């Protein structure tokens, strides 16, 4: 008896995973509000993002992929046909591994050592003037690259490899968490707008238009300027400003689905609004959402890098943008400081673009090859 009842409740939300997801979300919001109210700092702000990320990933990516194994294999086969997208995926997995394991193997990226400043990467040798303590004079000396600092050091003697590893962590955090946030808000806005229609649709879409009118980067700079930079806040700000494209796409897809026969049939059988949204509309737009998510990660990683490059990033973390900024100042003495983080940034963005292209072709049944 009780089992049947719980079945009905979860049915109203369109399946058990939605119920799990929303109760999890509610619990999370409750804890956050409690945290703000008590000023207790139960978790670091980033901790909440991770829990949210894990919740969404389990309910809407891992669980469906696990249940529909045949479909998973089909998507994988289609994605695999794109050799470049597999290459991109391999690089992203490598980057995730670096971000997770790397900090354990590399020295502290903030450790300053002026004796070792401006050491070039292995295989390069530069001439630089060094202050000789014995003669009290500046002497020109050859500085070869050493294996102690395989990618060299910057003007303060910080290890480049350690800084790049730390930057990989920051970029992935921002790229994944902020994208997830933006996509979540956008999808919710889009589906609501299309499903509710009428006055709501008008209001939500005009609000989307207003947000789209702001140049993305200028709005981001403006918000960070007002609220101050911290990594969690940057992620929040990107999430709260970057959802407009998704909202529009999801709205138009939902609108075209809304009048299809299977939705009509479900409605005439007396299905509730939530059930139609979560059981029939959402699953059908989810492939477009995944594609747009993958393709918006690079832009968001670049936005964070650009913010920290101009000095609006979180001052407590070493991100690629910060290193690049330092590199720009020492271009004539240590070229590698500017070159290395840029190459990492470029490869990461390229990898996500390749993967996104592959996934788009795999998920879009119209693009038969």
């Amino acid at each position: 008896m009780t089992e049947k009842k719980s079945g009905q409740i979860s049915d109203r939300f369109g399946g058990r995973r939605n119920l799990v997801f929303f109760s999890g979300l509610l619990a999370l919001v409750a804890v956050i509000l409690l945290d703000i109210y008590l000023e207790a700092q139960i978790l670091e702000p980033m901790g909440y993002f991770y829990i949210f990320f894990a919740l969404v990933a389990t309910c809407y990516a891992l669980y469906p992929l696990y249940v529909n194994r045949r479909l998973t294999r089909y998507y994988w086969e289609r994605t695999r046909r794109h050799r470049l997208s597999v290459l991109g995926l391999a690089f992203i997995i490598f980057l995730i591994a670096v971000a997770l394991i790397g900090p354990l193997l590399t020295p502290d990226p903030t450790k300053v050592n002026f004796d070792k400043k401006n050491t070039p990467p292995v295989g390069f040798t530069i001439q630089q003037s060094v202050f000789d303590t014995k003669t009290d004079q500046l002497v020109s000396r050859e500085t070869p690259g050493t294996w102690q600092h395989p990618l060299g050091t910057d003007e303060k003697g910080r290890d480049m490899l350690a800084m790049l590893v730390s930057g990989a962590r920051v970029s992935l955090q921002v790229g994944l968490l902020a994208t997830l946030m933006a996509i979540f808000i956008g999808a919710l806005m889009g589906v609501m707008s299309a499903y509710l229609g009428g006055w709501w649709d008008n209001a939500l879409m005009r609000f989307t238009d207003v947000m789209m009118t702001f140049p993305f980067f200028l709005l981001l700079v403006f918000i960070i300027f007002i609220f101050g930079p911290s990594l969690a806040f940057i992620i929040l700000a990107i999430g709260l400003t970057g959802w407009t494209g998704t909202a529009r796409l999801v709205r138009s897809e939902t609108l075209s689905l809304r009048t299809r026969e299977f939705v009509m049939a479900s409605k005439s059988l007396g299905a509730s609004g939530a059930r139609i949204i979560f059981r029939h509309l959402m699953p059908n737009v989810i492939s477009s959402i995944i594609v747009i998510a993958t393709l918006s990660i690079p832009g968001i990683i670049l936005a964070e890098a650009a913010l920290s490059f101009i000095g609006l990033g979180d001052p407590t973390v070493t991100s690629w943008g910060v290193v690049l900024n330092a590199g720009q100042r020492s271009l004539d003495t240590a070229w590698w400081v500017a070159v290395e983080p840029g190459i990492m940034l470029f490869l990461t963005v390229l990898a996500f673009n390749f993967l996104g292209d592959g996934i788009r072709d795999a998920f879009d049944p119209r693009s038969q090859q």
Partner: protein
Amino acid sequence: MKKAGLRGYIIKRLIYAAIITWGVVTITFVLLRVGPMSPADKYLSNMSARTQDPAQVVAAIEARYGLDKPIYEQYFDYVVNLARGDWGWSFSNSLPVVTLIRRHWVYSFQLILLSMLFSATLGILIGVFSAVKRYTRTDYLATLFSFIGISIPNFWLGIMLILIFSVQLGWFKSYYDTGLPMFSLANLKALVLPVITLGTGMMAGYTRYARSATLDNLKQDFVRTARAKGLPERVVIGKHVLRNAILPIITIIMFDLSGIVFGGAYLTEIIFGIPGLGRVSFNALFASDYPVVVTITLIGAMVVLLTNLATDIVYTRLDPRIRYD
């Protein structure tokens, strides 16, 4: 009948534009008030006279700028002042914001205009060429190039260009020289690296759009007819295909403004020290000079709004197939 429909459409678009303008202004106001620092604090952080009682100074500032009024009156004043063109006072420059903008906008304008010309011309040319030679080595090369162009962070590209062409080769100055007359070859030369920095990403995007738009059009019946008529390929591509492919590309170029161009121009101006609006806003950020930051954000939004409006309206004139309802 048709004319009335068009006029109705334009009026409707103008009303939408007015609503969006109001929304944009309101959002900046709300953000300013919600922020952890009150406007008075931001003013205060710019004052060197700290001998007086801070509470008194804050009260004086609040009275001077109307911050002691009820919030709806402040909002009303904010909107009215913006509409009247009274955009506040820049502390860090000791100038009215309007004067500051009037002095500096032209640098951003020339950078953006030249970059758009550069990227649109080259991008469309390469895209059409690569569509005509599809699935050849040229096409693959162009595709690879556009992938690289889209993925390369433009601020890093700018730094690399400085490293190679200014530091190593010494062909260009790494810093923009403001003393040059606007219409001179020297000024154009000073803008070469910034334009490449800003234009490469855009160009790569346009290459892809132009390629796919051309491919779509090459399949159309009118192309077959044109070829069957015995027209030379040059005319078929140059006249029939290009003309149909170019409209959607122009829309994309216009809509790119908000996403890619302004953000890119902001960073490019900072890297090369071009005294445009991006650079002015950047300097104002670190001086907590918030009227400047607000105004430049609003100007960006307004330019986007007006170009979108203009594109929509011009489009209905250019393309008779568009329905407006």
